[in-house]
């Protein structure tokens, strides 16, 4: 490129700067727009929907009960019906706990053994007590829990959101 004399900007240099500026401006608009479009899922929060899983009175005190339910939810442009279930435990009919029905070891479905009063996983012999704590076997952590609440006698849970173990 031609050397500019001191204090002067040549036509070529000026046009180069203008062209570079326009390219940068267009690139910034398209780039920022594209990045917002591409990265916006990072700022989407999980579904907040509470799912009605039936009357609270259906859960016998002290007997863990498996509740099956169908969840209708949006999946991007689609609405899907997802069948899932939860183990619901209550000792007094007022405070409820809902466990994810998958063993925390490798995700097998476990069952309640009424005689031993323990949750047993058939796959690798994981054993949990009524509070979901590991009693025996390979599971690395207690059973995962869902948020659960009672409203007007109906049990509501949020099956997508795991609750941190207190």
């Amino acid at each position, binding site marked *: 490129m031609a050397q500019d004399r001191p204090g002067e900007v040549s036509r070529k240099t000026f046009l180069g700067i203008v062209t570079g500026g326009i390219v940068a401006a267009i690139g910034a608009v398209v780039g920022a727009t*594209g990045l917002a479009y591409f990265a916006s899922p990072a700022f989407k929060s999980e579904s907040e929907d509470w799912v009605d899983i039936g009357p609270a009175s259906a859960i016998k005190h002290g007997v863990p009960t498996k509740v099956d339910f169908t969840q209708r939810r949006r999946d991007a442009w689609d609405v899907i019906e997802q069948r899932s279930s939860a183990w619901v435990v209550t000792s007094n009919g007022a405070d409820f706990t809902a466990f994810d029905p998958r063993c925390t070891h490798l995700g097998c479905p476990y069952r309640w053994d009424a005689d031993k009063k323990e949750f047993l996983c058939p796959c690798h012999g994981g054993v949990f007590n009524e509070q979901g704590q590991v009693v025996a076997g390979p599971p690395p952590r207690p059973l995962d829990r869902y948020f659960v609440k009672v409203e007007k006698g109906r049990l509501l849970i949020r099956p997508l959101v795991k609750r941190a173990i207190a």
Partner: protein
Amino acid sequence: MSASNDGGPRGWLYERTGVDRVWDALFARKVPEAQGWVSWLYTLGSATLFVFVLQAVTGTLLAMNYVPSPDHAYDSVRYINTSVVMGHYLRGLHHWGASAMVVLVGLHMLRTYFMGAYKYPREGTWMIGVLLLVVVIGFGFTGYLLPWDQKAYWATMVGTNIAGQTPFIGPYLKKIFRGGPEMGAATMTRFYALHVLVLPAIVGALIMGHLFLVVWHGISEPPTRAADADAEKEPGR
């Protein structure tokens, strides 16, 4: 200019890749001088290239949220328009960019024709350009179906029926376009694959060839009035 003597990372890069000489060949080459509005006609090729890049970027982003299937296409396009951040804007760019492509390649071809810029030694550039025109129309035709609204459906119905009028091979051609005897899911996946895989590969190769020849031959001069010949025909001047 010998930038190879530069110290530092720039000189290091130039010495090993020669990008400085590539840059000079592409952007510091001599172009003919044109006066007035005629000089704007020389921007049509670059404008087409710019819009093409824009189509590639926006199209890639749209493909991240689009499903080429009759039961999801319309909903996924609506999802892009209503739920994805900046989705409406990016789809708008792709939509208008598609029309701009066709307009720009048309004008670019007219300018090349009326200035006689297709003549020796630039016939190869012209022939590749004709192929590029066909590919751009192919992009337009296949992309038009993808929103799967009424306009898309019936336009493709008409378009494939026109292909069906071809003598002898028409009925087969129509079924090849549609992926079967009826328009439906197989038509959409077929058009989508053409739109995002086949045509981009072809257009990429053709653009490289076209641009190489543009740089290789240089840009043609604007046609000028030959003084002697015109003086003979118009004695008054």
